[in-house]
């Protein structure tokens, strides 16, 4: 009796102490997550989703050719068992409707030119082997177009869109997620956008304006240069028409007045304002909001941690040195040209009027 009591107490205490370790013991024994965490292994390019989708349809190239030649709607199955509907062209749309597209995960249009009537909506990802032209108010989940794509007004793309040639989005269209093009992207008035990537992104323009000012450092990145730093413990202001060589770092706000030039980059811990007709050879980074007045040219990346407002006829990047523009919210005026990436994390909007 005298031995049993302390033994029982010790056992009970031991069990209670060991109980929290039981899950740990199980995991150590079963090794269910004894593997490295996954890390990013892709190259991070904007068109990756679209290209992965296109690659998943490559095994059906022969079936697509046959479909284009015969004009018949066909169904093929991908490796994962999902159904893909093959459609010859816009004349086959009625056949497609008759065949039913509810259970398919992708629709491939095999013709060289597809004209999509107004109001068409696709819940499956769509593949176009040629060019695409849509009327107004079409809706896509994901859209890959091997040729050029011209999307009519009020078109919606929910996840991603890629065009091998040019991608045009009509007025009031919305390109949510990723939009990319091999040649150029053109956004109409009042378009909404997320992540855009193309050699040239034109906003409300049909023609790309010529590069107004040549690079001060042709063939060299701004980072390749040894430049001094101007450190401001408060606000920084550069007067009209002044030229500054070196980087500007301000603990407060930065105001670059109209017609000024900076042969370097700018970092502002508060709001930054770039006046009309300014020339910035490097990057502009703002920890808050950033306003760029019209007619300015910025060669390096443009980053704002809050809002970014880009005035008309602004040019960012250049054909020989594409760059990135990024902010949670971006408003951009018609007449702007961005070479490279324009990325609004929460939402971007093209202004409706000049």
């Amino acid at each position, binding site marked *: 009796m005298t031995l049993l009591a302390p033994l029982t107490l010790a056992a009970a205490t031991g069990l209670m102490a060991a109980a*929290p*370790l039981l899950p*740990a013991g*199980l*995991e*150590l024994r079963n*090794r269910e*997550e*004894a*593997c*490295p*965490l*996954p*890390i*990013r*292994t*892709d*190259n*991070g*390019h*904007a068109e*990756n*989703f679209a*290209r*992965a989708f296109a690659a998943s349809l490559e095994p059906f190239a022969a079936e697509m050719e046959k479909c284009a030649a015969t004009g018949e709607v066909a169904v093929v199955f991908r490796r994962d068992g999902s159904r893909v509907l093959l459609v010859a062209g816009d004349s086959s749309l009625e056949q497609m409707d008759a065949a039913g597209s509810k259970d398919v995960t992708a629709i491939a249009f095999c013709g060289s030119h597809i004209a999509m009537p107004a109001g068409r909506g696709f819940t499956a990802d769509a593949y176009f082997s040629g060019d695409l032209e849509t009327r107004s108010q079409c809706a896509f989940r994901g859209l890959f177009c091997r040729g050029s794509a011209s999307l009519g007004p009020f078109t919606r793309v929910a996840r991603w869109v890629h065009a091998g040639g040019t991608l045009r989005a009509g007025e009031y269209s919305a390109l949510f997620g990723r939009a990319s093009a091999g040649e150029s992207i053109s956004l109409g008035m009042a378009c909404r956008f997320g*992540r855009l*990537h193309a050699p040239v992104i034109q906003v409300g323009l049909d023609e790309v304006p010529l590069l107004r000012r040549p690079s001060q450092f042709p063939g060299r*990145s*701004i*980072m*390749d240069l*040894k430049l001094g*730093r101007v*450190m401001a*413990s408060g606000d920084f202001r550069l007067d009209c028409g002044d030229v500054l060589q070196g*980087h*500007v*770092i301000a*603990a407060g706000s930065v105001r670059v007045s109209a017609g000024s030039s900076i042969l*370097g*980059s700018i*970092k502002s811990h508060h709001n930054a304002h770039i006046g009309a007709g300014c020339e910035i050879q*490097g*990057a502009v*980074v703002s*920890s808050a909001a950033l306003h760029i007045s019209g007619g300015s040219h910025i*060669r*390096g*990346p443009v*980053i704002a*941690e809050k809002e970014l407002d880009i005035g008309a006829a602004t040019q960012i990047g250049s054909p020989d*040195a*594409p*760059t*990135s523009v*990024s902010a949670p919210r971006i408003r951009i005026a018609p007449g702007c040209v961005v070479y*490279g*990436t324009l*990325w609004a*994390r929460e939402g971007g909007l093209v202004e409706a009027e000049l």
Partner: protein
Amino acid sequence: MNWSGLPPDLDSWAHMLLYLFATVIVLICVYTARHYCFTVNRVLGKQRHPYIDIDTADWPAVTVLIAAHNEEAVIADAMQALLDVDYPEGKLRIVPVNDRSSDRTREIIDNFTERHPGRIFPFHRSSGKPGKAAALKDAMQFVGSEVFLVFDADYIPGRALVRELVAAFFDPEVGSVMGRVVPLNVGRGLLTRLLDLERSGGYQVDQQARMNLRLVPQYGGTVAGVRKAALQEIGGWNINTLAEDTDLTFRLLLAGWKTVYMNRAECYEEVPERWPVRVRQIMRWAKGHNQAMFQYGIKLLRRKGVNLIERLDGLLLLGVYAMGPVLLLGWLLAVVLFYSGAQIGGGVAILALAAFTTLGNFAAFYEIAAAVRLDGSRLRIRLLPLTLFGFTVSVVSVSRAAWEQLATAVFGKELVWHKTERTRMAPAALAHAPLAAGQPEAKTI
């Protein structure tokens, strides 16, 4: 506060111990609050990744230094991964820094150099002061670019990593950048699994929270980049330190340069698989960190150009490894004071003691738990109670390091660099790395 039955001459000593104990409790509470602030910020606060969207740019020339000392087991993986990164080929220069290796490291490097002419430029260092900082200092003659990256030989970068790290340097205020380290050899044993959790807490929560709150993210010495102009401005690498990373972080901060952390710039590493190796590693870190604390603590406090919150965070960061012996001292004092009959009066004192004995000891684990959740894994969290074991080993090791450092200072001996032992059998370990969920492209390394 009073003691019953103590002679008057011992009473003053007992009071002194009590004040010392109170100081320890205050320090622990400060670090507890820090851990909780970081965790809450990381889970609920606004996240800052200002440079992550720079995917297109006029990329600069970049030199990648791979620090290698007897790295035959791992150096090939690192070089192959760097050859495969997505960066303009003509602008990437890979420099393996072979620091006095006596194994096959040189042979492997030369073989790669021969197969990839014009891309790899090896630096075989056969003499000079041992240590990573000294090797990097000598290797600077091979750095012609304004930006250079540093990798250890056991690191395996992803395809976008170089670009992601370089992007931060478009900000003219950035002097150095740090990426996230993810253990590769997780499944090798209890130690590797505990280190996996610890790394998650350290990077996913601690470093990112400091980035979010505009505090002082730490340059970690690998998966990292440095602006050459900034390094030159602060006088180059400090070869008299055991933690060139901490040293660099604080010298840059004092000179008005920022260190930024890129949580998505992830890279695999090999963590120690044996406890003695781990103990040596953390002792070296502790000694180096403490060196930096003594060298830069007061300077940082007095530096007007650095804002107050950065100064405070910097001081707390410098004191991280000093908290090991402080914690041990606290435990010791608690026992001594208990048996000497000390009565701690007042609600605040009791609350502080409670914080010390409960929350204070668990704040770091809370951070790890949050990190595991953020990493999206469900079952790793089960190992959390076992991190107490790793924590205890670390506290004892760090305290031992502090004691050795003290003795070294007294007897004037030079601190010695201990290389971390590698155990990978290259390159098979890579085959077990899973692909990231939702990533459309297969891993090519």
